[in-house]
């Protein structure tokens, strides 16, 4: 099947939409508390099911210098609230935080990231907000409001959570929750590093910790199965998480981006347990066997061979890791041959997405970039705190720098991807430390596209974990990945010059579904057959 034709150059318009007045308050201090450089997440979700993507932004908090107990982080103050912005028909946004019941981010937490899913299969997307401190699960009531159900659900966690994501690890139709935790750290035992430069400390300075897996019981509550699943057996410094079934055994696996150590690939054994196989599978270290500063991650197929590959964003001099899925349960490191090595060797990457921005049939790469240290220029003039995001266009599996149209360097962190204006092209929202979210609206192309909304019946309602193939391309349904962020759950395919499409879906339930002669350039809801 011929998929491709000459692509136009994708270029974003940098938009400052009316009403989107959020400022990420990370509160940098001379104390250099490590949390200050780590937020914040963004989610693209249609919380009111009006067909338009809305934006949820996680705020940091107020940090004292020095921090005194009790740690309140000022989250009762509206400046430090997380915010929900409802998109209006004219592309403007309205802050509906208070009306939605999301005001006041609570006690003793400093916000980090967000995960989105309809965990109770009621047709409305719910929010899980991670923090240094207590995490919060907001149930979407379906009437434009949310309720904090954390205590009832049993998912408050503790310590320092960063990214999180929903997936169905046991294929029971209920979305489970994975929460990455960074390290054993607290403000009272913080320290600075870098001698005279007075910098944030590297992760090795603090003990590693385990991530958390919550099993969804299907009754609105979750069970912490971290121990019995084997997840807690591996201590890491986890920042990013993404899900896909890498070995095609029908069970969704987990990739965890760890900072300053080997990456984890948790293979789902299909019996409620996981085995960490990163090293044996060739997805744990760099090509030279070096530990990586894994931050953001995407687990999708970049070379259209039908298998999910892994791309991990890192610190400068490490280059972003491309782990190509070789199909025998193992991966090979392809950062150099894909061209991503030269594009990333001087940059620090956080939020990341593999999306077909020019609709040419090949998924391109977008990375939110910025160094960890806000004074890095003093230490190494060749590095920069604020950076332009990376747009790398995919030409048959090789990445080349694209003209993003973005000319202002930012301290980028989280990034979420979705079609904000429903024009068939993928847009980006990127968070910036101490700044406003950047909305990069895709100018679009003349290529064709197809966007699917999965409606699981036997599987989870969102269809997360489904393998969706369209005209030879593959995507694994998820809103997780990137860094601390949740993307539009709709599944977008660029189709080049193709004028119709064949859609093949392998649902988490095992059901296979094929749709032939599907019209292109449309949003299509696909309902899982009730019976196989």
């Amino acid at each position: 099947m011929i998929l491709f034709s000459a692509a136009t150059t994708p270029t974003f318009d940098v938009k400052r939409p009316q009403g989107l007045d959020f400022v990420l308050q990370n509160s940098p201090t001379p104390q250099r508390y490590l949390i200050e450089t780590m937020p914040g997440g963004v989610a693209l979700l249609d919380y009111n099911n009006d067909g338009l993507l809305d934006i949820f932004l996680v705020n940091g908090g107020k940090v004292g210098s020095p921090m005194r107990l009790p740690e309140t982080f000022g989250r009762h103050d509206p400046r430090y609230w997380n915010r929900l912005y409802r998109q209006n028909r004219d592309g403007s946004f309205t802050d509906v935080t208070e009306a939605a019941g999301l005001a006041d981010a609570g006690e003793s937490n400093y916000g980090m990231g967000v995960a989105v899913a309809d965990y109770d299969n009621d047709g409305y997307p719910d929010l899980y907000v991670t923090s240094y401190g207590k995490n919060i699960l907001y149930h979407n009531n379906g009437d434009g409001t949310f309720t904090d159900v954390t205590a009832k659900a049993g998912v408050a966690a503790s310590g320092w959570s960063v990214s999180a994501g929903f997936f169905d690890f046991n294929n029971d139709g209920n979305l489970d929750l994975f929460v990455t935790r960074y390290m054993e750290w607290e403000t009272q035992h913080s320290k600075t590093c870098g001698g005279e430069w007075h910098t944030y400390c590297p992760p090795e300075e603090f003990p590693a910790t385990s991530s958390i897996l919550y099993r969804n019981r299907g009754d609105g509550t979750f069970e912490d199965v971290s121990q019995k699943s084997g997840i807690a057996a591996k201590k890491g410094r986890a920042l990013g998480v993404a899900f896909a079934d890498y070995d095609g055994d029908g069970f969704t696996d987990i990739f965890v981006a760890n900072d300053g150590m080997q990456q984890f690939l948790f293979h789902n054994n299909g019996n409620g347990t996981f085995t960490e196989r990163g090293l044996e599978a060739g997805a744990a270290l760099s090509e030279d066997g070096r530990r990586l500063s894994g931050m953001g991650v995407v687990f999708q197929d970049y070379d259209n061979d039908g298998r999910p590959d892994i791309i991990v964003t890192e610190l400068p001099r490490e280059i972003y890791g491309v782990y190509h899925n070789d199909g025998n349960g193992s991966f090979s490191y392809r950062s150099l041959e894909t061209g991503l090595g030269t594009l990333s060797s001087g940059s620090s990457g956080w939020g990341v997405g593999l999306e077909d921005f020019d609709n040419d049939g090949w998924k391109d790469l977008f990375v939110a970039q910025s160094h960890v240290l806000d004074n890095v220029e003093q230490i190494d003039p060749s590095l920069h705190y604020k950076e332009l995001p990376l747009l790398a266009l995919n030409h048959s599996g090789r990445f080349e720098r694209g003209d993003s149209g973005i000319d202002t360097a930012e301290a980028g962190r989280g990034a979420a991807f979705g079609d904000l204006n429903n024009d068939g092209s993928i847009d980006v929202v990127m968070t910036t430390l101490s700044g406003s979210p950047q909305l990069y609206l895709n100018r679009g192309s003349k290529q064709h596209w197809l966007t699917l909304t999965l409606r699981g019946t036997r599987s989870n309602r969102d269809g997360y974990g489904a393998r969706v193939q369209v005209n030879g391309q593959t995507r694994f349904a998820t809103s997780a990945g990137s860094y601390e962020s949740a993307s539009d759950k709709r599944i977008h395919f660029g189709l080049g010059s193709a004028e119709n499409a064949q859609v093949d879906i392998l649902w988490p339930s095992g059901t296979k579904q094929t749709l032939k002669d599907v019209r292109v350039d449309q949003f299509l809801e696909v309902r899982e057959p009730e019976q196989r």
Partner: protein
Amino acid sequence: MIPFFLSLCLLWQGGSTDALPHLQAGQQAEKNHHFDAAIAEFRKATEVDPTSVEGFVDLGQAYMEKGEFGNAISPLKYALELNSDLGAAHQLLGYALLAQGYSKEAIPHLEKSGEQSALGIAQIETGQLPDAVKNLEAALSKHPNDPDLLYYLGRATGLLSKQSIDTLLAAYPDSARAHQALAENYFVLRQMPQAEKEFQQALKLRPNTPQLHLELGEVYAGASQWDKAEEEFRTETKLQPGNAEAAYRLGNALLQQGKARPAKFELQRADWLLPNMPETLYALGKAAALEGDSATAQHAWTQLIGIERLSPLAAQAHFGLAGLYRKQGKTAEADRELQEFEKLQNSAPQEQPQK
């Protein structure tokens, strides 16, 4: 170790018998590290017999052992007035003067006592750098790997190099070599934009100077500008086709851009020009693996491991081999290499980039 306090083998002249008990008492006290008592006794000996060379030398030595180099100078000088041929007194005085910063005055005494290490150090201070290098090298040949001597020799050669460059910059500030020297200095200081500018100026003035393109290429490589680095390294390999480092650098720059085939070619050439260099072999293995030439990759990495069994590069070669075998479905071999890699990793923790 530079001997700061020497045992004295003096040929003593005859002296007053009245001084002898004080000398003996002083030497006993000195042996017991009672330096104040020793100084008092030696002082009495020189008062009883103002011609006692032994008394003045012992007094000077006792002061030095106590760490009072300034107080040691007078008695030692007086001893030499009494007997100017006393080698041990010259040696002690030379050390005492050097310790007090009187390097110029120390030199004749250190010359007379044939003390090359201290002499070399004194000559560094007085700017007699070629002589300092000569003496320190001679001292180092007698005491190989002495850390103090290694340090001072490094300092002397560094200063000599700086002296030469300073002369160059003063006499020929607009010359290609002056710009090259400035660029190298900026490079060491990691001031890359300035280094680049100076190298380019040097090349403008003298386009085909060997080494200049190599050095400019390293500036670009340091900033991960691999395409520019490739260009410079390629020019250098044209100027110096026999330069193994230029071939290696070009190969590595190509490798960083994923250009596997030309990278492998250049790295094979580097290996031919200067065989068995671990860095070349490691990069050659990577380039070959990237190209899909498993045999060459396996050969290069195995050869490397044969040369450097325990180094970080050997660990990386084991890791590379594990990947190679994994791709070939040779699970047992892959696991074995991974074990070797982990063994070496555990014995040598890695450095992480600054976060």
